[in-house]
């Protein structure tokens, strides 16, 4: 295992220490693994909190700041944070208007955030929850844990963060979050496995001439393995399942996301392929993001997210955001 780390068990806290040193505009609670804004938002506004296992950086800690999250709770690598820590963060950011929990749909995340919400309500804090499940690689049926939450989480955090900043109430923010979740889909692929520090070796073996299609963001192998293909063919394998699942004709926000070890030169190349296919499918890309936003440690690969947009979503998208990972208009 080749990583810039000390001991595997210290990765999370030592990395958070770096975040704390690099970003005076954030407050980092090293004991509870919670990142909040150094300057909280105004009293009376809904707070937006997300969290999950670490290893997806900049998600979620890199999205704390004006116009996006109020708090991010970091679990160990690929392991949901525990309810008590989510509860600490929820309490810390509640400004009297309730807290939205943005949860990615994984059994661990769902269970821990459920318990956290129970703890919060025992303390009289109103919590609303959206469970993001946008991954079309997984059949949403009785025979799975449901679709995973992947790339859409980034777009949702941005949009919902903007809505909360406007002063909307919790019910309306929750409704918006669920609407966004309903009209966004993602699909990802990997060229290589990632290596979990504590495991010390790649999660799966992938021969030099193979790739995984339909991966998650935790080094889970994909739905199927395919011979390595050119970017144009990979783009097709990502875009088709999305368009088969979502009537995406019309304006959309599109993200071409890297899994952590894929450089920008490749991501832009992939974006050109993906954009061409989407436009053929009737999608008008109104806004886009190209880069490493929701990663899987040192995995090489990419994912595509398509969110159907309307004037409201585009206005929320364009609203100022000032976080380490996403910044404009501020």
């Amino acid at each position, binding site marked *: 295992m080749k990583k810039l780390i000390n001991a595997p068990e210290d990765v999370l806290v030592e990395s958070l220490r770096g975040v704390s040193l690099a970003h005076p505009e954030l407050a980092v609670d090293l004991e509870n693994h919670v990142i909040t804004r150094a300057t909280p938002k105004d009293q009376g506004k809904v707070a937006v909190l997300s969290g999950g296992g670490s290893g997806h950086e900049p998600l979620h800690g890199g999205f704390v700041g004006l116009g996006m999250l109020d708090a991010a709770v970091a679990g160990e690598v690929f392991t*949901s944070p525990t309810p008590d820590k989510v509860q600490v963060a929820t309490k810390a950011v509640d400004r009297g208007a309730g807290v939205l929990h943005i949860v990615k749909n994984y059994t*661990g995340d769902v269970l821990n955030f459920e318990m956290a919400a129970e703890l919060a309500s025992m303390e009289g804090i109103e919590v609303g929850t959206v469970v993001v499940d946008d991954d079309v690689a997984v059949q949403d049926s009785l025979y799975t844990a449901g679709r995973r939450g992947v790339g859409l989480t980034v777009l949702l955090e941005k949009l919902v963060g903007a809505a909360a900043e406007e002063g909307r109430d919790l019910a309306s923010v929750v409704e918006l979050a669920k609407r966004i979740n309903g009209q966004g889909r993602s699909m990802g692929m990997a060229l290589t496995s990632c290596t979990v520090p*504590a495991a010390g070796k790649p999660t799966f073996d992938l021969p030099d001439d193979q790739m995984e299609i339909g991966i*998650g963001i935790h080094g889970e192998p994909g739905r199927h393995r395919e011979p390595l293909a050119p970017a144009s063919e990979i783009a097709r394998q990502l875009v088709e399942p999305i368009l088969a699942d979502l009537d995406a004709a019309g304006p959309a926000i599109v993200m071409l996301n890297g899994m952590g070890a894929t450089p920008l030169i490749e991501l832009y190349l992939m974006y050109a392929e993906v954009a061409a296919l989407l436009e053929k499918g009737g999608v008008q890309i109104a806004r886009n993001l190209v880069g490493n936003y929701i990663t899987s440690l040192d995995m090489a690969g990419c994912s595509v997210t398509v969110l159907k947009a309307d004037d409201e979503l585009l206005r929320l998208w364009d609203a100022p955001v000032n976080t380490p990972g996403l910044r404009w208009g501020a």
Partner: protein
Amino acid sequence: MTDTIDTGTLTAWITRFRDAVTEKREWLTELDSAIGDADHGANMARGMAAVADKLGGVAPGTVDELLKGVGMTLVSSVGGASGPLYGTFFLRMGMTAGTVTELDATALAAALRAGLDGIVARGKAEAGDKTMFDAMAPAVDALDAAIAGGASMADAARTAAEAASAGRDATLPLVARKGRASYLGERSTGHLDPGAASTAILFETLATTIAERT
């Protein structure tokens, strides 16, 4: 000597379980690499280390105090799917055991059954979903049956351990329908479920500890 398990022995069980998951940590993670996210060994070792830290040096009080402490510590130190599930297991065990200092075979069986029900209440797993349930349910059933048949606690626990490890092995061909492994669909067959594997360890250590009671 009456056929009971007291807080001292329960503590020994917990300690032995800690030792075993720490020792088997790599193996559990390897199982989780195949169909999950390669952290089950780390999760269990971290959680049980936190539990041992908390127990360390403190005289065990009542059974419910002990087991609820274990559960709370797991909930607040593991995370992932296994944290709330194993946490709930011990919390419910403790609640059912009550403020006593020892359990007889029937009370132990009832506590374990409550723990299992807690896992189902949280995780909604059914038989054949390829989860820890598939090791735990047969174990608890076997324990019940053995005790109903008049077996000693030690024999009943040994039977339960065997049922758990058979249940673990039976997860091999299953297609997962819960947890991360379910994302793999058909590709999840041919692998043991990591949670079923840690559960088999849980019952194996229980049997050994009871057998070695002083």
